[in-house]
């Protein structure tokens, strides 16, 4: 058994973690990300890829339901942890690793799942995570979880519903061809996605013909953990985190890692003093990459008049590439000025505007555009009453 336990230990040392960020718990999520990457773990892109589900903060009803669904979709061996504050991260990850290595625990989990088959039928109308329209399930797990993924499909002719999934409607795409339309929900849990944002998209092919944006649990709002200590460094760290998301979505892995490291230094109270220098180096690299400019230019362009018409902050002027450079510039300025007036917060973007901006773009490009909006996780929330 020596070999088996060695393999289990090896596997647990390389776990993949799916992070669920409750709006208002950005610091916790960032700390979790930092510590898990530090120990050589990796971020999972989908529940199928995850060993650990880490819920950062206390989720509201809607987000908790989503987390439950994601938990069901994980293949197992699996561990679920809740992290309430940045200080708890290290301990929580240690527990997760120990639980992953605990063979009897995992065997029990697997037996319970198999035994629970069929008892877990859910009525339609539950939200899913961002993954897949058909709400997949782990083998031997909940056979009926798949129905719920179709909450958004606007018809219910069950005769035409193999495996309980209704067939698609048809609609015109942007070239005037009549194609199937598919309803896919993006968020609230998706890698490099603003916390709490949900986009209900109507796709024809992979082009978003229509989208509605909303926020999870609008009434369940925990204030940002550290609202008292809003400083220039914190403001800059957020910009770096958003830049890291956009860079990661664009596939620039080294630049994304760099942005993440600058963010972590900025958040560390006794962090190194070379943060401004590193930030400047990162900005230079990003600015110099012509491939990055080529891939992000002309995406989601907003002119000054567009901004005025849609009531958007003027930091969003230009295309995705301009906005990426803008994030890094604002981060540099905030670090230089420490706590200035600018550090009081990021101007807010109404959620409706997010939906409007992705209409007509394909799914992947829409992700880039959303990431380029430099949203503070909590920012759309303040606008919810107005929308």
């Amino acid at each position, binding site marked *: 058994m020596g070999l088996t336990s060695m393999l289990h230990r090896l596997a647990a040392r390389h776990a993949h973690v799916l992070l669920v960020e409750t709006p208002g718990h950005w610091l916790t999520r960032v700390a979790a990300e930092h510590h898990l990457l530090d120990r050589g773990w990796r971020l999972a892109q989908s529940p199928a890829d995850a060993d650990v589900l880490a819920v950062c903060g206390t989720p509201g009803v809607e987000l908790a339901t989503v987390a439950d669904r994601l938990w069901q979709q994980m293949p197992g061996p699996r561990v679920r942890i809740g992290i309430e504050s940045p200080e708890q991260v290290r301990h929580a990850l240690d527990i997760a690793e120990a639980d992953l290595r605990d063979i009897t625990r995992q065997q029990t989990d697997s037996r319970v799942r198999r035994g629970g088959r069929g008892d877990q039928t859910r009525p339609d109308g539950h939200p899913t995570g961002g993954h897949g329209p058909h709400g997949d399930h782990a083998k031997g797990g909940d056979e009926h979880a798949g129905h719920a993924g179709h909450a958004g499909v606007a018809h219910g002719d069950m005769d035409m519903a*193999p*495996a309980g*999934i209704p067939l*698609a409607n*048809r609609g015109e795409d942007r070239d005037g061809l009549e194609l*199937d339309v598919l309803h896919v929900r993006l968020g609230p849990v998706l890698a490099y996605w603003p916390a709490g944002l949900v986009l209900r998209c109507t796709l024809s092919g992979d082009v978003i013909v229509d989208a509605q944006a909303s926020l999870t649990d609008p009434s369940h709002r925990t204030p940002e953990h550290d609202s008292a200590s809003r400083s220039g460094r914190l403001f800059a760290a957020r910009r770096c985190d958003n830049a890291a998301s956009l860079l990661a979505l664009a596939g620039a892995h080294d630049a994304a890692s760099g942005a993440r490291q600058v963010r972590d230094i900025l958040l560390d109270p006794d962090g190194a003093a070379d943060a401004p220098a590193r930030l400047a180096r990162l900005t230079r690299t990003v600015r110099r990459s012509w491939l990055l400019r080529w891939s992000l230019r002309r995406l989601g362009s907003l002119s000054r008049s567009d901004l005025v018409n849609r009531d958007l902050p003027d930091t969003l002027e230009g295309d995705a590439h301009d906005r990426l450079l803008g994030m890094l510039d604002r981060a540099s300025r905030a670090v230089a000025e420490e706590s200035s007036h600018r550090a009081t917060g990021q101007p807010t973007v109404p959620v409706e505007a997010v939906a409007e901006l992705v209409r007509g773009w394909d799914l992947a*490009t829409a992700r880039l555009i959303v990431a380029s909006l430099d949203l503070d996780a909590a920012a759309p929330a303040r606008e919810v009453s107005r929308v």
Partner: protein
Amino acid sequence: MVSHVAFWVLAVVAVLAGAAVFIVNSMARASYALAVSFIGVGLQVLLLQQNYVGVVTILMMVMEMAVMAVYMIMFMGMNPALMPMSMVHDKRHALAVSIGVFVLLAAGTLIVPWPTRRGTPPADVTMTLGEELMGPKMLVMAAVGVVMAATIVAGVVLAAHQTRYDRFGDDLRRRPADDPQPGGVGR
């Protein structure tokens, strides 16, 4: 001996996969059953030592099936892999035609007096075959290729909704063009 067995096994695989095209109830499976059938035939041609023709058959057919599956699914419009659907239409006529063609071809293979080999096969069979097929007509073949490519381009241009006036404006001066999604060259 081994190659004889392989040849017959491939023949059976090709026929069965061909039949599967009409039996399975999903478009993806039907397309790729056809691809498997063609791969079987391609490998048989390889065994006949027509290496070039055999490998090119595999190459073209796999690519063709990938493209065919895309178009079929795009225009037929069904949820992925969900709705079982029949792969046969107009069964009576189709059956009559296919039996007729089979009888004709089978009779042909049995009745035709096959020539016996005179001389030895050339060193490069592919080259000889190519010259035999199109030696004196090479110019015609080359021209046909260009015409076919032009037809495809013209077809796409005629089918496209967007004209250059939509892209470049009424005076054709707008740069960059107004595309729903910008292209890579930046025209």
